[in-house]
Every structure is written in C-alpha cells, then in structure tokens.
C-alpha cells in the first residue's frame, strides 16, 4: 500500500486550490494605490554609442511623472556579479560594469536606455516615442570565436578584449590528458553546439517598488526565486539600502527555471524610482520584452575528444568550449560553464583523466546565465553524444559501452578526476530498469512497423549525473562564489499546536507548501494540515538563499529537519516535565509523547500549550515558547543520476521527427512526494525535448534577435510530446543529508536532450546513410538537409 501520509505519500497539493480558482496572488496581481507605470525604452541596435538621449519633449507629454536615463544612476552602483572565476593563469576574470540604465553605450538589443514613469503604461509608451535618440551604431560582436580574435570590435572597451576568462580544469591534468589521447587506441571527436535557450516561465517578470516616507522603508514585490538574495545584492551593491530598510517579497511566482534567480535592472529601478517619484512604480514585462531582457541559457560551442584503449575503456576526455556570457555578467553567469559544467565531465564513468578548457566570451547579446540544469546539461550532452558516436565508430552496442565504463556500485564513494566525489549511486540498476521500462527488446519490431509506413525509427539511450543540493559554502567560496549557499528554516509552533515553517527556499511551482509539511508531519506524527509554509518574504523568513540547483529539499528541507529536531528536543523536555519522567524515556508516536514502557502520555497540544502558558514548566531549565531556527550548510553536493531512453519516428521526406516513447529511470535517493517528483521529471523532459527539437534563440550577424516572440521561438506544445514513463525506484539515498534526498528538479532537462538527438541519429543511420552529428534544435529543415548532404 502506498503511504497516504508523511514522507513518501503522493499528497495532493494544497496550493492548487487557489491556482485553480483564479485566487493565486502573482506579482502582476498586486496594485498599490497611486502606483505609476514604467516603460523601458530599450535599444533596438546591438551595439552603439549613445550620443544623445534628449528627454525634454517627452517629459512634457501627458501623464509623464519623470523620465530617467543613465545619468540619473551615475551615483548608484551597477548590477553585481555573484561569482568570480579565476583563469588558467591565476588571474581573476574580466568584470565589466553593468549599469542599471545604459551609460555611454548600448550593448545588446533590449539594453535599457531610459525609463519613463507615467500615470499609465500607454502614456509612458507614448512618451518613449518622443525621446530623441542619437545612437551611433558600432559593429556587433555576435560570433564567439570571431569575438576573441585580434581586431574584433569590443563589447567593453575598458577591458581591452572580449574574453572574460580562459579557464582550465583540471589544469594539472592537462599533460596527462594530452598524453592519454596521443596513446589512445581510438579517439572520437565531435564538435557540438549547445543551443541558446530562453527560459520562458509562463509568467513574465514583474516588479512593483514601494517606498514609505513615514519609515524610510522600501518594499519590492518581484518575480524572484530568491528574494533574500535580491535584497542583499540590490541593497548592498546597487542602491545602498541597508537590509533592515528593505523588504523583498516574491509572492506566487509563475515558474522560474533559473531565469528568476538573477538580480535585474528593472528591480533596482522600480525600488529607486518609488522614492524618487514618491509613488509606487510598477513594471510588467511583455513577452517580447522578456525575450530581450531575461537572461538566456546554454549557448556553448564545444569540441570534445574521447580516448579509448583497445578494450574500449575510456582513458581520457579533453574538451574546448566557448561559452557565451552575453553583453554583461549576469548574477551567476561565470559559474555555469565552469564549476557547474567542468566538474560534471566524468559523468557516470570511470574516465581516469579529464581536461576541460572554457573560454567565456562577451558578445552583443542578452546576458546568459543559469537555465534549468545550468552547465550540467551541457556536460551531459557532450559526454553522452561522444559515447554514442564512439560506439557507432567502433561498431559496439552503445549501452554495453556505457556499462563497461560505469562506476560500479561498490566503488562509491567515488572520487572523480574533476574534483567532485559522488557519495552514492547505482548506474547499472537504473540502466536495467530503463531497459525494461522502455521495452528495448521490442524496439526492432517497432522499427519494422515504422519502416513499413515509409518512416525511420530510432532509439537513443543515455545516462546522466548532476550535482545538486547546491552547495557547501566553504567549497563554493574557494571556487569563487561571493555568497554562502546554506538554507534556513524557522519552525514556529503555536500554543494550540499548529506550526508555521518559514523557509528561505522559494516555491514557484515545486509544491513546497505541500511537501515540506509532509516531512514535519512524519517527524512529529501529526497531520500535515497542522503545518503551514511561509516563504518568499524577507520580512517573515530568516535569511535564505532561495530555490535553484534542485536544492530546496536537500538543503532547505534539511534546515527544516534540523529546526524540527530542536523543537522535538525541547518538546521532549517539556513532556518529561509534565509527566514527571526522564527526558531520555520520552518517545514520540502518533502526535503524542509517551513515557517508554508505560501507558503514560501527553498530547502534542498539551506540550505546545505548556510552552506558551508555562505554569507547570521547567522554567529553571528552558525558556518558554517553542520556536527554533536552523541554518543548514551541506557537506557535499548530491548526485542524482539515471538513464533515459527516447524513441523517435522520422519522416525522411519532410524531416519531421516525432517522439513516440520516452522513458526515464532516475535515482533521486529518498522521495517525499512521488507525485510531485514525477511532475518535475515530466516538465524537465519537455524542456529537454524542447531544446533538442524545437527551441533556439538565434541572433543574426547584426545582433538582432530573430526569435523574439512565440512566432519564431518554438515552445513545446501538448502535441509535441507523448506520455512519459518515469520511475524513481532505484534509490540510493544521499549519505550526507538527514532526509537522504538528492533533488529532482533539473534531471529531466539534463538527461533528455542527448536521448532525443541519439535517437534521431539512430534513425538517420538506419536509413542507409551515415550522419555523425546533427545540431539542436533538430528541426525538420535540419534533418532534411542532413539527409541531402549524406546522400550527396
């Protein structure tokens, strides 16, 4: 029987009721009396010198409150970068300024030049059209490899180059890797593009800034995954507002996928302008605006070499990657192609030496930062594509080649050659489970059936590993993080026994309001309905780092467990006092405190009431009240892993690929709410399928974004995907957090792109032609062209 309560139960989500009835409270639903609206006049050229921004006529337009330009922010800080990467030569990365409003130059289409605050949005737009602009267009820097050659135009003149950093990892292994490749029996080489993506949470970004003259306090309502981080970055680095005068609220947030982690100019602007205009100031992005102002994701160009010995054992991996930073360094941008990517290059395999080189490049495009998976999908795609190609070149079974090189269950904990040490895993188990789920045995028959219809059919299988539960603060500090990555929780037990958990984790679709209470209910033996989760408000929750990197349960949940353990310890003392028993004899069961071996017990509510009405209470020993806070800092990453299979049918006449079957066998360690976990995997797979078949942000040579709306940026729709088979039964619990959980939010997006592309290539190669690689998104046009080229 599946559990119906506590950890492991698929409890229905309580937050659904408000979302299903239209009662959700998203940032755009917040309107403050007297609010004005801001419209950002954005650059329509990729690169240019701002010779003139004349707002005289526009300022006199109806309804205009005030127009701001870069000059108004001269005394204000720029948007900070939260991670400093050190290059191969021990030098810090180049870190150019990132002004709130453009100063002197515009550096990408969408770069904000002026902000028009008016009574209505349409009035602000009218006034924007009356601003006189003189932009001297400069050559756009778009192609990364050209950008780092001598003579390229410079995105930032003051740093003298478009190279942000040239990173080598592990630099000490470079010679050994070169040697291994030289001596290899076989080397497979691939050149790969990890296509640039736009995260596209369905809720566009919104912010509302408010200022109280009475108290000199600021409040920012914003669509953020981490309101505390925004408070710290914006308060300390941009606007100079101390944290105790600044409240940041992220109410219901309509999806994030990484792009709502970062601190954006619009947030700082609305907060700043609320005081400057003495009115609340609201900004709601249109989708078109989101495309040119939300940080994009991925955008790597990589050459990977895999060396094998004569027995097909992997002996080395060497990669060279160009990673696009865009025009400015977004909050965590430098960490994505380095520490979130290079450290994962061992994958699920025993490759003894690995060398990763990453050149991060500035271009005249929207900044690029973390998007679901962040670095780990790029690593997985390279490894799993090159293994498949090696298998094809060597004429061996791709699953067998993987198995042969797996880290075996008895080898954990496993120290990889790329710094991280995996605590647990069983890659053979997930592969076995996958083979069964995906009915790989029946594939040949299904392929025949497709071929009888004039179609091709392909099967793609791959593994993935990710590092989640981000992250041990002391470690990331050494790697360049300018923040700690702990999480916090306050567990407040009220007199009548109800509990409020205030967490620094933020839920924007992950169901924390349902899953977190399951953990506490399990620990205390009470009903979930007695526990309420409060998040997303810096005035309520203790300092927290927010939700990304599949960290909420592993880190935030662990903080909650620690705080609840403190509650339990104190509650046991109170119960022992009430029953005149020894504290060591108290046991908790079904919401009651029992004296072991007797029939004496008191109810949870008796204890909580005593804590707040301490008439009969050990006041000499403990304080009244029952509220505890814990900060949890993990000692390692967690390492979810799994095996994915995709089966496609391909129409060789049109190039159209359809996903016929998709199976995912994941090891997430322990699982609190299987229903929610499966939903996370479904969504991740769809995003991975989107990357593989549909999505791609494309700039032309002039830096114009060709995919600036849903008319050209292809979002996965219901017709593009099948029902998925997902399974998480092969669990090897994490050994270093109290819940044994690993995190599940990104797995689907990490594991699925290579499965899809491997399947497409399997289909193409079954049709009597040889195709080594095809770039994502694998559009019908690209497939058709690949077929023509192979036939020619």
């Amino acid at each position, binding site marked *: 029987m599946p559990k119906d309560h506590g950890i492991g139960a698929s409890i*229905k*989500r309580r*937050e*659904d*009721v*408000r*979302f*299903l*009835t*239209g*009662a*959700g409270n*998203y940032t*755009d*639903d917040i*309107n403050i009396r007297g609010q004005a609206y801001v419209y950002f006049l954005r650059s329509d050229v990729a690169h240019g010198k701002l010779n003139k921004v004349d707002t005289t006529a526009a300022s006199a337009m109806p309804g205009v409150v005030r127009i701001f330009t870069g000059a108004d922010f001269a005394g204000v800080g720029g948007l900070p970068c939260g991670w400093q990467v050190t290059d191969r030569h021990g030098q810090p990365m180049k870190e150019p300024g990132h002004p709130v409003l453009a100063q002197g130059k515009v550096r990408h289409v969408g770069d904000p030049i002026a902000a028009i605050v008016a009574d209505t949005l*349409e009035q602000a737009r009218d006034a924007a059209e009356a601003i006189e602009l003189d932009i001297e267009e400069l050559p756009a820097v778009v192609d990364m490899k050209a950008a780092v050659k001598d003579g390229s135009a410079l995105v930032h003149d003051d740093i003298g180059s478009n190279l942000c950093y040239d990173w080598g990892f592990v630099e000490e292994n470079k010679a050994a890797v070169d040697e291994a490749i030289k001596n290899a029996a076989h080397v497979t080489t691939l050149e790969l593009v990890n296509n640039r993506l736009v995260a*596209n*949470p*369905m*809720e*566009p970004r919104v912010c509302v800034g408010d200022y109280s003259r009475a108290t000199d306090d600021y409040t920012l309502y914003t669509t953020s995954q981490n309101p505390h981080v925004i408070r710290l970055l914006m308060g300390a680095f941009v606007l100079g507002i101390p944290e105790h005068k600044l409240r940041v609220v992220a109410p*219901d947030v*309509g*999806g994030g*996928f990484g792009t709502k982690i970062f601190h954006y100019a619009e947030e700082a602007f609305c907060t700043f302008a609320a005081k400057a205009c003495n009115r609340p100031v609201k900004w709601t992005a*249109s*989708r*078109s605006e989101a495309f040119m102002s939300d940080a994009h994701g991925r955008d790597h160009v990589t050459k990977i070499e895999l060396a094998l010995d004569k027995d097909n054992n992997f002996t080395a991996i060497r990669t060279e990657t160009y990673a696009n930073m865009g025009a400015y360094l977004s909050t965590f941008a430098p960490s994505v192609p380095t520490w979130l990517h290079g450290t994962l290059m061992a994958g699920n395999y025993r490759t003894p030496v690995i060398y990763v080189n990453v050149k991060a490049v500035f271009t005249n495009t929207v900044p690029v930062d973390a998007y679901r998976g962040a670095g780990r999908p790029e690593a997985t795609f390279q490894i799993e594509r090159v293994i498949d190609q090696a298998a094809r070149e060597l004429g061996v079974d791709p699953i067998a080649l993987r198995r042969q090189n797996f880290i075996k269950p008895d080898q954990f904990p496993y120290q990889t050659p790329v710094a991280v040490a995996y605590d647990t895993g069983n890659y053979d188990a997930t592969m076995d489970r996958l083979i069964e*789920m995906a009915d790989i045995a029946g594939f040949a028959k299904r392929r025949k059936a497709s071929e009888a219809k004039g179609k091709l059919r392909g099967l793609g299988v791959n593994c993935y590993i990710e590092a989640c539960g981000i992250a041990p603060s002391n470690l990331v500090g050494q790697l360049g993080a300018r923040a700690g990555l702990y999480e916090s929780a306050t567990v407040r037990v009220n007199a009548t026994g109800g509990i409020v958990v205030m967490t620094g984790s933020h839920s*924007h*679709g*992950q*169901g924390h309001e349902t899953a977190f209470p399951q953990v506490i209910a399990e620990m205390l033996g009470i009903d979930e309905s007695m526990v309420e989760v409060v998040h997303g408000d810096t005035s309520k929750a203790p300092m927290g780092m927010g939700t990304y990197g599949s960290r909420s349960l592993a880190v935030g949940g662990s903080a909650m467990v620690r705080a609840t353990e403190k509650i339990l310890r104190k509650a046991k003392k109170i119960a022992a006092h009430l029953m005149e028993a020894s504290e060591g004899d108290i046991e908790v069961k079904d919401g009651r405190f029992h004296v072991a071996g007797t029939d004496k017990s008191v109810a949870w509510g008796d204890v909580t009431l005593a804590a707040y009405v301490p008439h009969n209470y050990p006041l000499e020993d403990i304080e009244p009240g029952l509220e505890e806070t814990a900060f949890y800092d993990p000692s390692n990453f967690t390492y979810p892993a799994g095996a994915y299979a995709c089966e496609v049918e391909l129409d060789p006449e049109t190039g159209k690929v359809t996903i016929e079957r998709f199976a995912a066998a994941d090891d997430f360690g322990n699982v609190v709410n*299987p*229903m*929610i976990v*499966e*939903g*996370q995997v*479904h*969504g*991740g*797979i*769809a*995003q991975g399928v989107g990357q593989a078949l549909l999505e791609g942000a494309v700039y032309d040579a002039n830096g114009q974004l060709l995919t600036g*709306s*849903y*008319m050209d940026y292809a*979002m*996965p*729709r*219901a*017709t593009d*995907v099948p*029902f*998925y*088979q*997902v399974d998480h039964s092969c669990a090897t619990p994490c050994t270093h957090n109290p819940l044994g959980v690993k995190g599940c939010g990104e797995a*689907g997006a990490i594991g699925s792109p290579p499965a899809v592309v491997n399947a497409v290539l399997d289909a193409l190669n079954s049709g009597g032609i040889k195709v080594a690689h095809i770039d994502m998104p694998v559009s019908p046009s690209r497939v058709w062209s690949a077929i023509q080229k192979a036939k020619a």
Partner: protein
Amino acid sequence: MKVTMTVNGKSRSGEVEGRTLLVNFLRETLNLTGTHVGCDTSQCGACVVHVNGQAVKSCTMLAAEADGADVKTVEGMANADGSLSVIQQAFQDHHGLQCGFCTPGMVMSAAALLKENPKPTEAEVRHYLEGNICRCTGYHNIVKAVMAASGQDVSNIAAE
C-alpha cells in the same frame, strides 16, 4: 465608452477606451486577476476565457467587442458551493499544474473541449490544447487530468 457584460453570472459595467483589451477590463477594472497574460502574440493561452460559451483569448479581443456578452472566467468555474468543479478537481487529483500561471487558461480550454467532445482521445486533447502553453508540467498530467475529467479511466496511462 461604457461597456456592460455578464461576468460569471453577474452584470458588470465599466468605462473603457477603444483599445482596452478584454483581459485588462477583467483584471484591472473588475479585479478578476485569475485570467493571466503570458504573451503578446496570441499564442500562450493563459488568458483564455469563455465569451458566449466559446473559448477566446481575452488578450486578443477588445473589451468593447464583449459589450453585451456573457463572459466566464476561471473565477466562475467552481461549483455553486465553492467546491472545485469536476475539471478543476481532476487537475488537482492528477497534478495537472505546477506554478499555476497557465492553469486558468488550461481549465477554460479544457472546459470548452469537453463541452464539444465529452470523451476525447489523448490525441484530441493534445490537439485541442495546442493554443495553451505550459512550461512546467510537460503536459503529461494536464492531458491525463482532462481525460479523467471526461470520466475516462486514466490509471493505465504510462508511468506513475
């Protein structure tokens, strides 16, 4: 200009400009913020409401065009006693929503589908929801929820 329409069974009036979109009238004038705006090219469907019984994208219809119409939004979908309707309940039961932003449009489109086609196949559900984009669920549980709401047995649908 003044417009008057029946919204979720009640007559509602308000002043609008020619350019006022139906979604703005609903969200800003009537404070019915359940209807969302997720794009500006009439693709995403977060704004779907029913006008005279038909699903329409309220971000691509002028409020003035709905003058005199019967409009239903997600706020009007629950049962009279406030409990979730069959479709809403199916979305909760089958985890057909995550962040909830596309959900109002999904519910309204699903209701329109089931009115036209009370027992849709999987393919029919997917096809009908082509104008509603969800970024969270991968559609799996949405399709499952809509089929369940139509009274079909979904217990054998791939994977639990």
